[in-house]
């Protein structure tokens, strides 16, 4: 791979003697103006060492620089003894053909295995400018909960190299994101430290009340959202693209606090396009009324059958109303799927875990309330006149739902105006026919 040496490299040969018995190597890489080569350097004593080769840069493509190589000179300029910050400044101003005089690193690496990209959904927000542990601040990749990341290298288990979905074209170099176990350990540590801080707070008289409030909140989480596991530290979830088959439509699940329009939106879809949308037929222990048809209005079953089905985990959700049990079974959703219609369900957050662990491949949409003022206007249209505290409660409830279950949602619609929300909902549902969507990889295995 080495070309015959042009005259400009003569100085290298003159200088090689300076480095005694060390085996030195000369490599040449073309550097474009203002575009980094895509390698990082660190100091080790006096030395400047190549620390990391970043995917997508000239350094990686050339295959000539390796992690652990020491840079002695670049274009005849002495590098050994320089601070990495100086090296950074120096290289930022250089372009064209760069000749590196290197002491090759000792570490012998296995030949590069075939690149496998892992796609993950981030379940936390990350801001590298706020992270003292990120090894190279220029390379930190910020992302938000719900973003899809294409992880292209996990060679360093603590710092993965990744692109954010949609960024690949304008961002040739990969960025650094915390590795999964690194992030888990860090969060676990943070939680321990926060717990440890609590007793100190109680030392102050006025904090006794505060502590009580906090305890109450934890209790709330534990009871009302029993599906929400407080111990679980959410990091990344592996995802794959899934294209909805024409004859097997994904069920559409609407989630949100009461009074935010999910039932109205569902009803509107069913009324406007009855040939496309259908509801799953629920089960009930109530006796059939005269005008009702078994299998159309409800599946009428005995209490014993219902209880047995509960134990067998056949229900997505169920509840009691006027001493009778009602519930939606997985099978009744599957029946709608098999009929090539789109199953519409409004569910509680408690059902989400069960639903995600089924084979129904749901598409989950969060219907969120707008600001308090807008929500008041929205409800006024329905002839309702809620008190300010009721409005605040709805908004607080929505915030809590998002906090505890946001990682289950595929997307969210803020219902500021019912007509607009309906159009947006329809657009999202139609998109499933034409565009593949990211789903947990476990669904496709």
């Amino acid at each position, binding site marked *: 791979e080495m070309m015959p040496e042009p005259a400009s490299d003569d100085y290298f040969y003159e200088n090689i003697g300076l480095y005694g018995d060390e085996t030195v190597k000369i490599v040449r890489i073309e550097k474009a103006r203002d575009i980094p080569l895509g390698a990082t350097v660190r*100091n080790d004593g006096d030395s400047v060492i190549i620390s990391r080769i970043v995917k997508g840069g000239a350094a990686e493509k050339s295959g000539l620089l390796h992690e652990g190589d020491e840079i002695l000179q670049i274009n005849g300029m002495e590098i050994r003894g320089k601070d990495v910050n100086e090296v950074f400044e120096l290289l930022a101003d250089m372009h064209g053909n760069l000749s590196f005089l290197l002491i090759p690193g000792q570490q012998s690496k296995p030949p590069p295995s075939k690149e496998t990209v892992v796609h993950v959904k981030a379940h936390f927000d990350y801001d590298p400018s706020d992270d003292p542990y990120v090894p190279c601040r220029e390379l930190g990749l910020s992302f938000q909960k719900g973003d899809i990341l294409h992880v292209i290298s996990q060679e360093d288990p603590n710092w993965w190299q990744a692109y954010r979905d949609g960024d690949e074209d304008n961002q040739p170099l990969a960025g650094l994101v915390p590795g999964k176990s690194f992030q888990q350990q860090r969060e*676990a540590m943070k939680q321990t430290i926060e717990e*440890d801080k609590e007793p100190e707070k109680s*030392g102050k008289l006025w904090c006794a009340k505060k502590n009580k409030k906090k305890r109450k909140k934890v209790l709330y989480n534990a009871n009302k959202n029993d599906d929400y596991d407080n111990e679980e530290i959410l990091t990344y979830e592996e995802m794959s693209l899934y294209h909805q088959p024409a004859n097997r439509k994904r069920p559409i699940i609407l989630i949100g606090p009461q009074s935010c329009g999910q039932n109205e939106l569902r009803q509107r879809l069913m009324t406007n396009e009855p040939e496309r949308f259908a509801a799953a037929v629920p089960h009930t222990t109530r006796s059939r009324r005269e005008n009702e048809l078994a299998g159309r209005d409800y599946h009428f079953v005995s209490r014993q059958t219902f209880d047995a089905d509960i134990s067998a985990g056949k229900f997505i959700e169920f509840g009691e109303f006027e001493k009778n049990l009602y519930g939606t079974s997985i099978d009744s959703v599957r029946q709608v799927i098999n009929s090539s219609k789109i199953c519409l369900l409004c569910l509680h957050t408690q059902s989400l875990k069960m639903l995600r662990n089924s084979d129904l491949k749901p598409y989950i949409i969060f219907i969120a309330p707008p600001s308090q003022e807008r929500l008041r206007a929205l409800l006024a249209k329905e002839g309702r006149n809620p008190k300010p505290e009721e409005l605040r409660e709805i908004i607080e409830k929505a915030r809590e739902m998002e906090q505890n279950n946001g990682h289950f949602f595929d997307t969210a619609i803020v219902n500021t105006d019912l007509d607009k929300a309906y159009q947006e909902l329809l657009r999202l549902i139609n998109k499933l026919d034409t565009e593949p969507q990211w789903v947990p990889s476990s669904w496709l295995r």
Partner: protein
Amino acid sequence: ITAVLVTMRNKRATQGTYSPSRQEKDGARVEMWNVLKLPPTERLI
């Protein structure tokens, strides 16, 4: 009130933020984290 304050202060003396025994119980990993140094600075070239 003075008595309460004194008890509080005593309590506080034994319940500071730094409680290695407790962290030890929580697992070795946490211990390691507390002594983990920042990685050497890397710069992009």
